[in-house]
């Protein structure tokens, strides 16, 4: 454990020796095993080391960055030299200053004591259970691919201002993807995934059966109709449709550079009063929690939107310094690039009605369980295809749909919310973003049939 911080220290000191004014080293050393199935069968077992060192330097407030995945002294020295030489060629920027240390509180539950003992045999057993659960659900289920993954990594960060931190974390995840096939009819793809810090928190059979249920339910789908109606988004669809543009709009870098629709909107209403969104990087055991961020500052528990009113943007130290304020602890990224800005564990506050009640009140609409789109985060324009969906007529789900699209503007959708469910689901993309979300109902959306 000492060794990693020693390597960081070597990198930082070498950078100062080569003429940098400030230096930061971020180092990851990890081991990962995974088992993959393809075309319904176990196919591949992998194990590999995930190592990396990223060095950021400022010389006369000019940036240089270099990274490498080999840790011998000579290579580290060459890499540092590259970072310093880049910093001699780049433009000065008065905000290029590394952060000062802040007290770090250790977040519990980020490492599973059983992780070291979790071996290939266990991963294979879990995979076989997942495959069997999906196949036994219905013979028409086709598994395109499935993955069981276990990773242990130690992250260390040190800078010339006195930041010095390291932490070991484990992450277990699984994924299953495929479709249902009934003679000539092929359903839409669907997938389910989950991840957690502890192996015991994951239930592969449950994930597999949810996946199987969703693809079988989408068999027999027919084209929809064109109308203006209500959509109800499942948590999966919320993640696909809403989270990217919202995070884009609240990332301080986009706000400061004219790329956010919500620039200058803190304290103002940006969504229906029903909407409250929080981000908590300090959540005990959270799949996206950590005791410190990419720059070695503690994450925070931050309210982004409260009752429809925009409260906070997400900052790293560079963007915070520009506004003369502190970082919110949202520096993100790995060893191969300069710190960016990213969310951790997001929660959308649930509502009071049940999912059934939300559906029951809809005269004509669509329950969207999976949505495929490329929402434009700058304009908020979104137009995409319902990949998993059911027509709602007179308060009841009547049939599965294909080739149905809906379009509009996401930021306008946010003010047209007409209900959030009591039920929530937890979704966690490994190392990207965690989300707890209810079903969300939006009125008056343009729906186009094929």
């Amino acid at each position: 454990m000492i060794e990693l911080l020693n390597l960081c220290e070597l990198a930082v000191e070498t950078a100062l020796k080569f003429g940098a004014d400030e230096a930061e080293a971020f180092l990851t050393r990890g081991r990962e095993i995974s088992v993959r199935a393809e075309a319904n069968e176990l196919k591949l077992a992998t194990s590999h080391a995930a190592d990396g060192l990223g060095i950021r330097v400022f010389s006369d407030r000019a940036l240089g960055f270099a990274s490498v995945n080999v840790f011998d002294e000579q290579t580290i020295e060459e890499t540092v030299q590259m970072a310093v030489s880049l910093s001699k060629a780049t433009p000065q920027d008065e905000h290029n200053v590394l952060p000062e240390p802040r007290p770090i509180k250790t977040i519990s539950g980020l490492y599973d004591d059983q992780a070291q003992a979790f071996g290939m045999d266990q991963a294979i057993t879990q995979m076989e259970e997942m495959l069997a659960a999906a196949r036994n659900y219905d013979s028409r289920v086709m598994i395109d691919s499935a993955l069981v993954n276990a990773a242990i990594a130690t992250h260390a960060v040190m800078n010339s201002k006195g930041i010095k931190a390291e932490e070991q974390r484990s992450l277990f995840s699984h994924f299953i993807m495929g479709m249902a096939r009934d003679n000539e009819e092929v359903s839409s793809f669907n997938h389910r995934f989950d991840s957690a810090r502890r192996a015991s928190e994951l239930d592969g059979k449950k994930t597999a059966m949810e996946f199987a249920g969703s693809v079988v339910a989408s068999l027999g789908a027919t084209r929809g109709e064109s109308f203006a109606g209500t959509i109800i988004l499942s948590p999966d669809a919320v993640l696909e449709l809403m989270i990217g543009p919202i995070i884009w709009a609240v990332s301080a870098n986009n706000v400061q550079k004219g790329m956010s629709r919500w620039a200058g909107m803190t304290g103002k209403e940006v969504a229906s009063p029903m909407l409250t969104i929080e981000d908590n990087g300090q959540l005990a055991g959270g799949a996206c929690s950590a005791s410190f961020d990419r720059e070695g500052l503690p994450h925070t528990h931050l309210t982004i939107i409260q009752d429809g009113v925009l409260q906070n943007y997400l900052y790293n130290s560079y963007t915070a310094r520009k506004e003369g304020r502190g970082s919110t602890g949202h520096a993100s990224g790995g060893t191969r690039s300069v710190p960016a800005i990213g969310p951790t564990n997001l929660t959308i506050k649930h509502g009071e009605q049940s999912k059934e009640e939300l559906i029951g009140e809809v005269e004509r609409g669509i329950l969207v369980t999976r949505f495929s789109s490329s929402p434009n985060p700058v304009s908020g324009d979104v137009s995409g295809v319902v990949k998993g969906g059911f027509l709602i007529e007179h308060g009841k789900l009547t049939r599965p749909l294909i080739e149905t699209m809906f379009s509009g503007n996401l930021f306008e959708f946010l003010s047209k919310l007409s209900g959030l469910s009591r039920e929530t689901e937890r979704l966690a993309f490994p190392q990207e973003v965690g989300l707890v979300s209810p079903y969300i109902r939006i009125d008056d959306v343009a729906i186009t049939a094929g």
Partner: protein
Amino acid sequence: MHELLESLLGEFSGVEYGELRYHERKGLIVSVRQGELEAANSTVYSGIGVRAFHHGGWGFSSTSRIDRESIKGAILDAISGARAAGKKEGARLGEASLATGRFAPEIEDPLSAHSFEEKLALVRQAESKVRSFPFIASAACSYRENLDHKYIYTTDGARAEVIDSKPEFRLFGVAAANGDRVEARESMGITGGWTDLLRKDPDELAETVARRARDLLGAKHPAGERAVVILDPGLAGLLSHEAIGHTVEADFVLSGAITKGKLGQKVASELVTLVDSGPSQYGRLAGGTVLVDDEGVITERTEVIKDGILKSYLHNRESAALFEVRSTGNARAYEYSDEPLIRMRNTYIEPGDRTLEEMISEINEGYLLKGAGGGQADANAEFMFSVQEAYRIKDGKLGELLRGVAISGQAFEVLQSVDAVSKEFRFDMGAGYCGKLQMAKVDGGGPFVRCKAIIGGRK
């Protein structure tokens, strides 16, 4: 490296096949937004990926430590993985043209001959050009290069050294007025050197981006409908890659994609010949050019659809054996720590004999669609992708510009509806990446293609 790898091949005991792939990637990213430098990243990522095959199962391991003991350890891990996953006796790998010797694209003006300062200046100048227009609220520009050096050695005879060079250049502008914001993008990506990358003048490209963002800001949204559309070469490439290409990757076929059992059947208009090619055709080297794949197989030009008939799937050595054909050279790994998967390369529709003007003049009501955005497709070939610009066509004439939309449809139905294909051809996805468990650098393109598709609108 040669002696080290050659001597280590003997360590693969108790398995049917072993593969050692050394891959060093030197990367550079320079990125400027609103006049501020956001990244000046130099990266080196190197190591050896080791793969073993036994009874139909694969084991993969990787190490960044290039010494005999570390590599031996990775070989043992790969062997035990393959033995644990392998349950099918008799499974084998297909025949292939295994590469021996050194393979490198022809590059006239290597990226290494240009300094970091020059690359930084290119990015700063282009970004400031976009920002110089008064209606532009925000601008960004980036340059990225990946320089690869690989050695691919297999127990059955591949002994290849592979060199690659893939630069990319991207521009982005946002126009804003009355609380509304619209973006426009342009990008270029190739296999090759500096001069080839910058064949289009970056200043002109910057002006194109800025003016398009402004024009789109004032544009209306189209109504949703099924319509006659002309796809530009980038969209033809995206359709070929995203909606058709993925459904003919043999691993997807095996798991039940819609193309299963359809070889020899008519799946598209006879005007359509769709190709996925490792080598590049038509001028400078396309961004997805791969001379030797990551199983050490010399790549080929694969005709997926020939005159409307489905001719071939895309194979690695394992799927080739199952289908009793030769590998098409589609096994690709993004970095040393990734295992090879069936991936596309340069995917495109072959040009036809019409002009764009003729194709427009024959449309009573429809759209000319330009500028590929993101896209996704399904096992049933249902696709969705976003389009930057939609021009209305009425009575054979090009009309007003409309806001970008998403288009969708079932890709084979769309290809069946093709009734005209232009002479003009270009690759236009060279800055693109495809994600399938790992990234892959791909390119795509085609002619202008007239067909029917669904447009997602606001009414």
